C-alpha cells in the first residue's frame, strides 16, 4: 500500500477545486494546497487577515512584512487582488461567500463534527483563530489530515473526544489513505490509496464506511 505524502495529499485536494473557486486554506498542511493547483485554473485564495487573491511565495529578498497570510508567512498578491479589514474578511467567511475552506483536524466524526483547535489537555494552551468561523461559514468544508494518529488510532471517530470546532460541518475528508465524503447516511469512501483495499481501510478506520458506487 502506498500512503500519500503531504505533497500528494495537497495535490489530491487541489484536483477537486474547480476553476473560479474562492478558497481559504488553513494554516499548516492545507497551505500546501496552493502549490499544487492545476495550471490554467483561476482560483482566488482568501486569507482571514484581509486579502483576496494571494499569489505565490515571494522570491528570497522580496518579502514584505505588510503582506502575509493567516500563517504569518510572506505572500504576494495576484493582479486583481484586494485588501480589506478583519470584519469584512469574516463577513466573507460567515456570510457564506467562500466556496471552500481546507482545514487540518485532530478528529472528524461520522456526523461531520470537526475537532481541530484544542487537545483538551490541562496544560495545553488553546488557540482557535478563524477555524470556528470557517467551519460554519464556508460552503464546503474540506478536511485534510493523516488517517491515523502516531499511535495508529483512527482520527475518523464515532464521536470526537477533543473539543469541537464545529458540529456537522465537514463535507469531505482527505487523508493519506483515502478520500471520504461525509453524508447524512454516513461516510462514503470515494477512493483509497493505491494498493489499499476497502476492507483494509475499514479495518484501520474503526467506524462504519460505505463504498461509493461511482467515483467522484
Amino acid at each position, binding site marked *: 500500500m502506498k500512503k500519500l505524502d503531504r505533497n500528494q495529499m495537497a495535490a489530491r485536494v487541489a484536483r477537486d477545486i474547480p476553476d473560479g473557486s474562492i478558497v481559504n486554506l488553513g494554516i499548516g498542511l492545507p497551505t500546501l494546497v496552493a502549490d499544487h493547483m492545476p495550471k490554467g485554473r483561476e482560483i482566488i485564495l482568501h*486569507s*482571514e*487577515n*484581509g*486579502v483576496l487573491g494571494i499569489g505565490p511565495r*515571494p522570491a528570497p529578498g*522580496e*518579502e*514584505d*512584512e*505588510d*503582506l*502575509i497570510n493567516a500563517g*504569518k508567512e510572506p505572500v*504576494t*498578491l495576484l493582479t486583481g487582488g484586494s*485588501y*480589506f*479589514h*478583519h*470584519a469584512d*474578511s*469574516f463577513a466573507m*467567511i*460567515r456570510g457564506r461567500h467562500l466556496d471552500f475552506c481546507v482545514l487540518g483536524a485532530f478528529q472528524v466524526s461520522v456526523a461531520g463534527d470537526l475537532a481541530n483547535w*484544542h487537545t483538551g489537555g490541562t*496544560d495545553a*494552551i*488553546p*488557540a*482557535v*483563530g*478563524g*477555524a*470556528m*468561523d470557517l467551519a*460554519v*461559514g464556508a460552503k464546503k468544508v474540506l478536511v485534510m489530515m493523516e488517517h491515523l494518529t502516531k499511535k495508529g488510532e483512527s482520527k475518523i471517530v464515532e464521536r470526537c473526544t477533543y*473539543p*469541537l*470546532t*464545529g*458540529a456537522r460541518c465537514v463535507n469531505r475528508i482527505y487523508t493519506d489513505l483515502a478520500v471520504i465524503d461525509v453524508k447524512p447516511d454516513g461516510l462514503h469512501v470515494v477512493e483509497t490509496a493505491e494498493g489499499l483495499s476497502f476492507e483494509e481501510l475499514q479495518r484501520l478506520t474503526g467506524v462504519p464506511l460505505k463504498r461509493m458506487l461511482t467515483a467522484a
Partner: protein
Amino acid sequence: MRQCSAIIFALVIDKLFPTAAAALADIPNGATVMIGGFGNAGMPAALIDALIAQGARDLTIVNNNAGNGDAGLAALLKAKRVKKILCSFPRQADSWHFDGLYRSGELELELVPQGTLAERIRAAGAGVGGFYTPTAFGTKLAEGKETRRIGDRDYVLEFPIHADYALIKADRADRWGNLTYRKTARNFAPIMASAARCTVVQVRETVQLGALDPEMVVTPGIFVKRVVKIATPMQKAA
C-alpha cells in the same frame, strides 16, 4: 473680523502629536486597550514601546494574538502590565512570554473565535448591543452563552467589546486623522479605531489636508483622536 479669524484659528483640528509618549500620557491603570496588528503586520510597535515606558498597569488588552518573540506586545506582557487578554490565537511557536504567564495563572485569557472577535469590535464601534453568530455554536467557546434558532440555523449571542484606547498603525494620515493603510497591515485597525473612546495612530507619513484622495481614505478621521508620525525604515516594495 479679527476676532472671527482668531476663533477659527483656535478651532483648527490638529490631531498630530509630537511623540508617542505625549499621545499616550493619559492612559490610566486598568484601562482596556485594543492593539492592532496580526502578528507583526500592522502592529504599532512604537506605541507599544511608549505604553511600556508610560507604566500603566492592570491593562486589559485586545489583540488577535498574544505576542511574538520578545518585542512589542510580548514585551508588554513580559513587563507584567497586563491582567487580561482577549484574543483568538495566543499559542504560537514564539509566544513564550504569554505561555509562561498563562500557565502560572498571572494572565487571564478570554479566547474568542477570530471572526467573533472582529464582529464584537465592529459592533462596539457601530453602537450595536449584541449579535447572533453561528460561529462556535455547540462548542466549548459557546458554553453558558444564550443561543437562539433563527430560520434553520443555531446562533450564539455575543456582545460588543468597547475599549478606552486603541493603538493602531496606519500608512498615511492628515491632521484630521484620515487614514490609509498598507496591504495586510490594515487587519483590525479600522474596526478598533471605531470601538475605542480614544484612538491613537502610528503612521509612516503625515500629509497635508487634501493630499489623501477621499476615495482612498479607509478610516475617516471621525474615528481617530491622535496621530504620531514614526520614522521607520523604508518598506520594500513588493
